[in-house]
């Protein structure tokens, strides 16, 4: 689609409106916004998403009946595909609709930018020097009066509304008497713990704490070393360095985006159910997240000392040791302690899938609906986590 108002936006048609005249339609933004790939992709997804939801609302289609209602059988592609099984037969046309709407979004984005208004994509992916140049040209508008501001608001509101529909948000369910009664029963049992199993609970939580401790301690050296390879300011200088950086970043992001719970399931198949599997899962996740946190610290260091050390003729390792490490060591320690704290909390969860420790115990009692015992375990967990939290806060404060 070409939504160019007049011929004003055409590239190469000279400076638009050199006399500073401005009408309502042309607006005061008399400059052609450059169209880049990144911004178009972003806007295509954003507009495509909005258009898809709009279409879904108009046609009254919901998540559940995504099967049948949107398009008639005469839809070109669907008739071509109907021969196969039931379920996926109408899925493909939907994909096509979404793709078409995304493409529409892309052209919408290009059109709007060409017309001299800045879309959200344009705003986000504008190169900094261009930004500086354009910003000096006129008084800035309040953000919510700009095109990208309006786009942001609409996207947010639509997403909020969609989220309420999709999560089946219902006040009625919360206050219904049946559900309320059940919750009250469980809570009252939890509130009257059975202290007979206390020794068992303490042993289990010790196992959990050791698991968290070992996972953290084993993860720290790996994360420490990886962090320097994942820091753009150290690795971005050479081509090989940048390749290593990109590869490691991707690998760690993937590792990190898989929850420890999933890793625990994988490892319990691998090394058998028990604390070892839980520890491995925690460790892997800890390496990935610590390496990311650490490397961000490395990226935010002051370049001055690095220059100072480089200027003495020091080698790369010496630069890292003398200029980088002193700047990051305290935050490293504080992050590590914080991470141990997180790991203690997480390892109780990991226990739920057979990762050992107190989580496994909870699973057993909960399966038998022995809520009094579960109450004891919950109490032990609460106390431990609270103690860890306080301790870690104190330690982090002390070394600041």
């Amino acid at each position: 689609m070409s939504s160019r108002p007049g011929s004003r936006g055409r590239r190469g048609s000279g400076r638009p409106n050199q006399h500073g005249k401005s009408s309502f339609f042309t607006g005061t933004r008399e400059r052609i916004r450059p169209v880049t790939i990144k911004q178009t992709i972003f806007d295509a997804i954003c507009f495509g998403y909005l258009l898809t939801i709009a279409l879904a609302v108009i046609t009254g289609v919901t998540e559940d009946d995504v099967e049948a209602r949107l398009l008639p059988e005469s839809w070109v592609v669907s008739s071509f595909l109907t021969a196969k099984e039931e379920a996926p037969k109408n899925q493909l046309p939907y994909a096509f609709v979404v793709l078409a709407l995304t493409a529409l979004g892309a052209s919408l984005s290009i059109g709007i930018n060409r017309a001299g208004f800045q879309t959200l994509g344009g705003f986000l992916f504008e190169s900094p020097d261009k930004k500086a140049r354009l910003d000096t040209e006129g008084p800035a508008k309040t953000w919510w009066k700009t095109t990208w501001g309006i786009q942001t608001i609409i996207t947010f509101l639509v997403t909020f509304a969609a989220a309420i529909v999709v999560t089946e948000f219902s006040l009625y369910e919360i206050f219904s008497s049946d559900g309320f009664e059940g919750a009250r029963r469980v809570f009252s049992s939890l509130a009257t713990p059975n202290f007979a199993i206390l020794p068992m609970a303490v042993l289990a939580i010790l196992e959990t704490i050791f698991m968290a401790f070992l996972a953290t301690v084993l993860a720290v050296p790996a994360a420490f070393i990886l962090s320097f390879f994942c820091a753009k300011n150290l690795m971005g200088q050479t081509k090989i360095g940048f390749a290593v950086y990109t590869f490691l970043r991707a690998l760690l992001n993937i590792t990190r985006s898989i929850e420890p719970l999933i890793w625990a399931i994988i490892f319990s198949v691998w090394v058998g159910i028990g604390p070892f599997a839980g520890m491995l899962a925690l460790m892997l996740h800890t390496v990935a997240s610590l390496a990311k946190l650490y490397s961000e610290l490395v990226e935010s260091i002051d370049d001055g000392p690095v220059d100072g050390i480089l200027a003495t003729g020091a080698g790369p390792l010496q630069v890292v040791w003398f200029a980088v490490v002193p700047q990051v060591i305290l935050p490293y320690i504080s992050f590590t302690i914080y991470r141990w704290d997180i790991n203690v909390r997480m390892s109780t969860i990991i226990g739920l899938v057979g990762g050992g420790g107190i989580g496994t115990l909870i699973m057993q009692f909960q399966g038998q609906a022995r809520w009094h015992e579960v109450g004891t375990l919950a109490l032990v967990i609460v106390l431990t986590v609270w103690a860890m939290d306080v301790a870690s806060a104190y330690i982090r404060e002390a070394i600041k």
Partner: protein
Amino acid sequence: MICPTIRGNETGQPFCPLMTHDQGGCHDGNRAGVRLRRDFPPLSRRRVHLIALNLPRALSTMAKNCRGVVFRRKAHTLTAKQLSIRNLAKRFSGDIHALRSVSFDVEKGEFLVIIGLSGSGKSTLLRCINHLHEPTGGQILLHGQDITRPRTAERRQLRSRVAMIFQQFNLIGRHTVLSNVLMGALGRTGTLKSILGLFSAQERKRALEYLDLVGIADKANIRADRLSGGQQQRVAIARALMQKPEILLADEPVSSLDPATCHVVMDYLKKINRELDITILCNLHFLDLVRRYARRVVALREGILVFEGDPKEIDQEWFRRIYGEETQDVHIE
């Protein structure tokens, strides 16, 4: 070669920066040019343009119009210099020409001061010399030897011969003063040894001597970030000396110090220049400091060398050429 250094200034009064070398034009690493009379008439814009387009013809035209003589210097007369910068250029990504074409020579034991507006490329020039930035054009010669594109090992070796101090001191705040000075020896200490802190007793002794030289031996075991700015800069000087350099680059060494401390630090620089015979290239902003300490001055403007000579020669007229017309009300003296 087209000389990129020729351009008019803002007032439309064309000036020719290449006139500044011995009042004569010079190109291609000072090897050819026009030597002009001292009171050469201002060049017209057209002629300046011409020079840029056709160098040989422009040179002879210039010689005729300005009653100068064309000269050709022999290359070897220049290589005896300790440091020669030839047409040095540095372009940053985003098409920022920090240095366009800078040529000058430095002799051993000199105290050379580089002046110029903020953003004129002074820091870039110094950082190119010890390869904290890689130059994108031109040449740097150290004792006649081309060091423009060193390999990794050579670069480290070069950096330990050419020390540098910075405006922000760039010490390692969490280490002691002594250990900061010892870091000057990193270039010739093995990686593992230095990381384990195994500097030889002799190095330690030297470090203390240099601390003594800059007058803060008593602070040797204090954390470096506990010192005042002036003291930190003196530690930085000691660290630089620890490298046993032949050249010391100082990038605005006193810009974050008060006027009194300024002189203390500058006096130490002067002292090491005189007593240890270390060549100093120093960026400065204040002309009174320049007059007091510089033996020779070069001035940069937008990445071009616009003045080279004695600090006393910088009169009101030159001041305006270097710093731009709008600063004419600033009183120098």
